[in-house]
């Protein structure tokens, strides 16, 4: 009789595989039982729960330490590099396109799913009605490389908000950009 390999013994101990062999082989059954006993003993060991105050204190400490860190570098490969040359004295532009899947309720909360800061040489924030700013936003939306966005970690999962953005067809994306541009026009006419 061929006995179970180490991997098979482990699989039997963890998941109950190879039951037919174990029914007929005392040697393997004993070994699997031993593995199960050790697993059971180990699983009973708990970590003492720290005081409730500890967690807030812990978060505070991390927050302060992180505040002292330089900003992490964005690896988003949205095609933003070109913007510096297109718009000279751009300071910071934030695009937030928020998408949520609506539930049965007519009004769903809106969550921002893709926010990207574009920083380039410059001092002042553009005002809200600043046309070049809005125009750039429309441009940016049209320039986002959606394939790269996926690669860069914006992973689409069923039910998640960013799925909605990433699964848009080219035509739908074009429509979003058109809508953005429509909004720009409205802002312009105000």
């Amino acid at each position: 009789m061929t006995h179970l390999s180490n991997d098979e013994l482990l699989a039997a101990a963890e998941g109950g595989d190879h039951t037919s062999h174990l029914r007929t082989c005392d040697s393997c059954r004993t070994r699997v039982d031993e593995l199960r006993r050790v697993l059971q003993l180990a699983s009973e060991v708990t970590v003492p729960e720290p005081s409730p105050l500890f967690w807030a204190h812990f978060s505070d400490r991390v927050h302060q330490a992180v505040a002292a860190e330089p900003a992490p570098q964005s690896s988003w490969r949205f095609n933003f590099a070109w913007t510096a040359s297109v718009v000279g004295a751009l300071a910071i532009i934030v695009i937030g396109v928020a998408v949520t899947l609506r539930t049965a309720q007519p009004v769903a909360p809106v969550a921002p799913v893709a926010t990207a800061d574009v920083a380039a040489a410059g001092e002042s924030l553009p005002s809200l009605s600043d046309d070049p700013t809005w125009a750039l936003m429309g441009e940016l939306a049209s320039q986002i490389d959606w394939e790269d966005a996926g690669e860069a970690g914006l992973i689409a999962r069923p039910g998640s908000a960013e799925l909605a953005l990433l699964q848009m067809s080219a035509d739908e994306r074009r429509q979003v950009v058109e809508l953005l541009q429509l909004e720009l026009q409205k802002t312009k006419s105000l």
Partner: protein
Amino acid sequence: MATDVTEVLAQNIRPEWSVRVVQPGATAEVDLATLASLDEPALVALCLSGRREAFDVIVEKHRRAVYQLCYRFVGNHEDASDLAQDAFIRAFRGLERFRGQSALGTWLYRIAVNVCLNRVSAKQPQTEPLDVRPHIDQRAIHPDSELLRGERAEQVRAAIAQLPKKQRATVILRVYHELSHEEIAGVLGSSVGAVKANFFHALGNLKKLL
């Protein structure tokens, strides 16, 4: 100060979606409640865009698991707390390397395990002898007694602490954090076969110690 294009979009694209365009300067609207509702890729993206408060949400979601992982390695609150803090700071520094190929939690485990292994290496000799501790005579104590459970837990903790570090990491991730063999391979940077072999030998070593 958001321009709501929800209705236009709903009529034009997909009725089940709502879209909001947030104007520059209006991003302060993203409050903590909204942040807490975001999924992890969105939180990471926000952090990378300079919104550090998004990292607070990540910390809050994962602090207990990361702390417990560290505690399993070092067996005391002070060190576990320091190591967990260190792990989060390193995670923040390396956030641009998170590509979403694994869950954020698994990625954080990887960092925490490395932090712990480095600490363990610095504090202890690389190869510690497996010292077989005397058994408690379990027949002498009622099986349900607190004393027995406490002693037995202490015995198991001590036995795990004596495992070679990769075996220890494997036991901790598998038994207490319920990672799959594949996920553990990702965390430890080894093959699935090596993880299974490590785990099997770890259980064998524990059996000798318990």
